[in-house]
């Protein structure tokens, strides 16, 4: 198992180096230069030259890349052009918002998707089965931002049950030691704040969780159907185990293997979809930040933000692989 983990970790190195190179080249290929963005169009040639020298842009491109690697490796991501604050500070404030959102979306998707898939497989071919297939088909066919707009219209604008924008009501007095607002409310014993933050999460989480919900339900259904016909399940039934025990110990445990991989893969969809969800619900997370950075030509923010999200995504995938190796011994040796 240790060898498996070490090999996976070593494989990460070329990916991370390639990623840094890709982002470095990409930033330089973006239309408009940081010089234009920071100094404006009417800058004198002398000012431009000084600026280029100050930021090392007059040096050979390899040297610039090497410097970029060095500073990035030391955890320095530059200063946002738009907010004039360090990119790392921005990430520290915004990343918890996105994680909170993706976690809530994932919880929604798993809590609803798993039972939906299992019930559909148990009632294979019945109206229940067809209904669950239809629901998951709608789930993958509806754009996240459209679902978000509909939810916002119905439950925030029309019915007024839930808030439509932001992470917390501005009138609520709350401290934020971790920047995970729900957690903050709990640790500071401010239950009103925690509840308010939770209410702000419900609609975005449903909108963002719709695709994983559909995929989890589909994969669970297919996987349970597969496992149900295995010889060992028949043996278990034949030797007289109660159907409940067979379902839980033999069918479900094996059927969940492919489902765990799928759940891990959904994380990428969630991080991408967060851009849209955060935009509709005006949540100050990583997604809406990246979107604003593009329109503001805020290259340090873009560079740092996208690199950070990619590294997190790569690490999550690694974690998924390792978990999969742990629960499925067949993978480890190959």
């Amino acid at each position: 198992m240790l060898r498996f983990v070490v090999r996976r970790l070593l494989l990460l190195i070329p990916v991370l180096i390639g990623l840094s190179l890709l982002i470095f080249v990409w930033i330089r290929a973006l239309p408009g230069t940081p010089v234009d963005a920071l100094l404006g169009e009417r800058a004198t040639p002398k000012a431009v030259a000084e600026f280029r020298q100050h930021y090392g842009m007059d040096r050979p491109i390899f040297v610039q890349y090497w410097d970029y690697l060095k500073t990035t490796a030391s955890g320095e991501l530059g200063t946002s052009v738009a907010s004039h604050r360090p990119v790392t500070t921005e990430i520290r404030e915004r990343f918890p918002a996105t994680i909170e959102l993706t976690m809530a979306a994932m919880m929604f998707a798993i809590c609803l998707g798993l039972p939906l898939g299992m019930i559909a497989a148990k009632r294979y071919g019945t109206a229940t089965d067809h209904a669950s297939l239809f629901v998951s088909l709608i789930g993958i066919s509806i754009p996240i931002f459209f679902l978000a707009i509909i939810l916002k219209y119905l439950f925030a604008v029309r019915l007024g049950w839930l808030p439509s924008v932001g992470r917390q009501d501005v009138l609520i007095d709350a401290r934020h030691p971790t920047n995970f607002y729900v957690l903050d409310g709990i640790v500071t014993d401010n239950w009103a704040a925690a509840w308010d933050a939770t209410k702000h999460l419900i609609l975005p989480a449903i909108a963002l969780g719709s695709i994983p919900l559909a995929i989890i339900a589909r994969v669970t259904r297919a996987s349970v159907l597969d496992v149900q016909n295995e010889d060992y399940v028949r043996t278990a039934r034949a030797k007289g185990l109660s159907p409940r025990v067979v379902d839980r110990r033999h069918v479900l445990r094996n059927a969940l293997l492919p489902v765990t991989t799928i759940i891990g893969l959904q994380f990428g969809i969630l991080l991408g979809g967060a851009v849209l969800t955060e935009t509709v619900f005006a949540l100050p997370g990583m997604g809406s930040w990246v979107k604003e950075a593009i329109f503001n030509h805020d290259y340090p923010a873009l560079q740092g933000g996208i690199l950070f999200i990619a590294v997190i995504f790569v690490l999550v995938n690694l974690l998924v692989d390792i978990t999969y190796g742990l629960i499925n011994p067949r993978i480890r040796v190959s």
Partner: protein
Amino acid sequence: MTVAEVEAVTSGIEGPPAGLWRDAWRRVRHNPGAIVGFSVVALFIVVAVFAPLIAPYPPNDQDLSLLAKGCCPGPSWSHLMGVDDLGRDEFSRVVYGTRYSLVIGVVAVTVGLSIGMLLGAVAGFFGGATDNIVMRGMDIMLAIPGLLLAIGIAAMLGPGIWQVMLAVGIASVPIFARLLRGTVLGQRESDYVLAARSTGVRRRSILSSHILPNSMSPVIVAGTLAMATAIIDVAGLGFLGLGPQDPATPEWGTMLTNADRYLGTAAFLALFPGLAIVIVVLGFNLIGDGLREALDPKLRGRV
């Protein structure tokens, strides 16, 4: 029915196996979901082709007098889907929007498919260092979540409908490359390739006329499903404001960008373009699912 035929039916012997495609077509026709999917897409193609005949008004015709009583007049007999904030007929704009959505799907998938297939086929067929270099490159692209990668490429290319299609297409390259590499690797070791090689067929033509045609069915399925994703993703980029910069363009995602502002007064402006996206995407997903079932060798021979 002759005696031999009756015998064959009762004893479960099948006639000569129909070809893969004919067999698949037979099963697609018996799949109600796929039929619905094909009908929906066919309907959208008809609407797209005959848009000028179906739409009661030109998509950019402004009639500001309609806004005299405030924004925005809801659905009525003369304006089936209401009027938008610039006095344009929403129904006509949704109808013209079908053109964009279909072109978007086709262009984005063609871009992703052709580049991805080329890279995947080359990597799978030549193996070794080529394989390693190409696939590590794909890994790097896959390290960035799909939609974010598309947003990044779109930002680099600048805003516009073609740029967005290209961005969504390029972002889907690694998925197709991986898929094709996998199938080509599987086919490379098969007996018919060995046979072709031993009779002296050149490597390039083994790849193009033996391996590729036999690797097609998963690609067709993935391509159809990618059409659905491409339409959603392009609409998403349009919604974020990376799409066509000319607000006159009746692209559905772009039409939803401003919907937020009118959510309290004219929610129907968001509803109709959004529903159009859902229906056409649903159509492609149904076709993709139907094709997957039809082309799956495990299910062959069954209806």
